[in-house]
């Protein structure tokens, strides 16, 4: 695989996303967060900072998942549906390079999008820090502008990369609608990974219990990436946990991209 080709495809995907106004979602995020922050500041004294942090992180995650799924499934299927893939695959680009480039391009788009949303998030938090009186500040469990929030954002980004790889994987062999449904389903189910593991404690049927266990091992465990509540309450996130999550995400993404490339490399374009 030639990295230069992967890079060119990735830059192209990023350019396409920018022109498709994907980054406008960050502007929408900014508007919503500022409006919500203003309202929350009016309604609940003391707890407002935690609510804003919760809301900000949840919104970054949701906006990111929306982009990862809906842009991710279109990366391959749009090329095929609109037939632009014919001219592209006649160029010196392997199908594996195309998959890798598409993934890298959306990863770059998500990184820029999350960077903008995080910047807006921190501007709102800074505003709260400046406008809060000392007595209120002393009641906070963690400072308003808390660098630990960046750890939570980074782990959200890792989740989004897995969601992107899932969307890309499903879109190599099924229709965009089904690919979106499968990806969304895996994302939701992946947040209940611990419950799947303990499925045998709440069901009696051995088959259901076995299915729960299989799903636990097959589905990506997104709950492992969720440190939002810990960070909002000012708790420390161990570097080891972050490192393990990085390795886990890399492994899951690797498996998904290899599977996607294998399926895509044998696909006919009628």
């Amino acid at each position, binding site marked *: 695989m030639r990295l*230069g*080709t992967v890079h*060119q*495809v990735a830059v*192209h995907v990023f*350019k*396409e996303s920018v*022109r*498709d106004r994907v980054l406008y979602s960050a502007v929408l995020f900014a508007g919503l967060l500022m409006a919500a922050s203003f309202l929350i500041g009016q309604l609940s004294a003391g707890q407002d900072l935690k609510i804003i942090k919760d809301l900000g992180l949840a919104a970054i995650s949701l906006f990111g998942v929306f982009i990862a799924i809906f842009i991710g499934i279109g990366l391959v299927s749009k090329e095929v549906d*609109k*037939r*632009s*893939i*014919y*001219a*592209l*695959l*006649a*160029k*010196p*680009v*392997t199908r594996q390079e195309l998959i890798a480039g598409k993934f890298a391009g959306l990863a770059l788009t998500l990184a820029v999008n999350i960077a903008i949303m995080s910047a807006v998030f921190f501007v709102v938090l800074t505003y709260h820090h400046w406008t809060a009186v000392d007595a209120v500040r002393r009641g906070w469990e963690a400072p308003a502008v808390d660098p630990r929030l960046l750890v939570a954002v980074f782990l959200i980004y890792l989740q989004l990369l897995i969601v992107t790889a899932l969307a890309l994987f499903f879109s190599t062999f099924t229709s965009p609608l089904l690919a979106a449904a499968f990806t969304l389903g895996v994302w939701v189910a992946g947040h209940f990974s611990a419950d799947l593991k303990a499925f045998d404690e709440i069901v009696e049927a051995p088959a259901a219990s076995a299915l729960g266990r299989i799903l636990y091992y097959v589905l990506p465990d997104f709950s492992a990436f969720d440190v939002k509540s810990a960070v909002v309450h000012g708790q420390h996130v161990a570097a080891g946990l972050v490192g393990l999550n990085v390795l886990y995400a890399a492994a899951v993404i690797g498996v998904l991209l290899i599977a996607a490339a294998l399926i895509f490399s*044998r696909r*006919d*374009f*009628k």
Partner: protein
Amino acid sequence: MVIRTEALTKDFTTGFAARRPSRALDALTIDVRPGEIFGLLGPNGAGKTTTLKLLLQLLFPTSGTAEILGRPAGDVDARRRLGYLPEHPYFYEYLTAEELLDYFGRLFGIEPAARRRRASALLDDVGIGAERRLPLRKLSKGLLQRVGLAQAMLNEPELLILDEPMSGLDPIGRRDVRNLIARLHGEGRTILFSSHILTDAEALCSRVAILAKGRLAAAGPLRELLSEQVRGWEILVRGLDDAGRAALSARGLPAALLPGGLSQILLPASSRPEPVIADLAASGASLVSASPQVETLEDVFLRRIAAAGETAPGDLA
């Protein structure tokens, strides 16, 4: 050989519940030689596009082999040396023609300065003016076809594979593309193109293959496929009166009336035209033309397609 296929076969499956195989291409064996213009002809659904896609590995063969520029179909190094125009080309609608060529130029690893220079010259060549800075979604079908030709020539390819290159073009566009293909051929490039417009093939090709229902119906040099034997004569005269007409009828040669006061007399190949022309002149008619009737590519095409229709494989189930 620039291209060689050996018993190249492609089946597609149709139907959802009961999947049936349908043969789109059946044991196609052809070769394309260096420096020639090779026409892949056939009616819609004959297997032309399937063949080109198999050569580019956009499709995988059910059986048989395809080689392109001495490498197996789909080889990345071979793709560096070829250009491809898909049928009804469609490109990224948010890019301009200049940006599209720049993106593809990057994939070929062409240096930035050369990329800009080449893109500009190619867009000039195919007649794209100020439209080169418009998003591709705003271009007409004909202009997209021209952009498609430009991108196919970006890497100065040894081999051009053009799927219906005249499709969507107006008469001026078709003439321009014909001239362009002839010029590229003059530069020593090999060109394989598919078409169902026979006059284009007749004007350009040194050899052709005719496909019908996925099977090779005929292949070879044009001059061999087209019989040069005279099949008859057409004589056109003006001012043929009733007496002259009756005299011709008596010899078993009815004269058909054409617009503009012209009369057409068709002679079989076994008759010589000179005595008839002399008689016509004696009856006061003036000769407009006397032309030998030779077989056209259309005649060959229709004859071969009709013959192949009786033996085509169709559905395999």
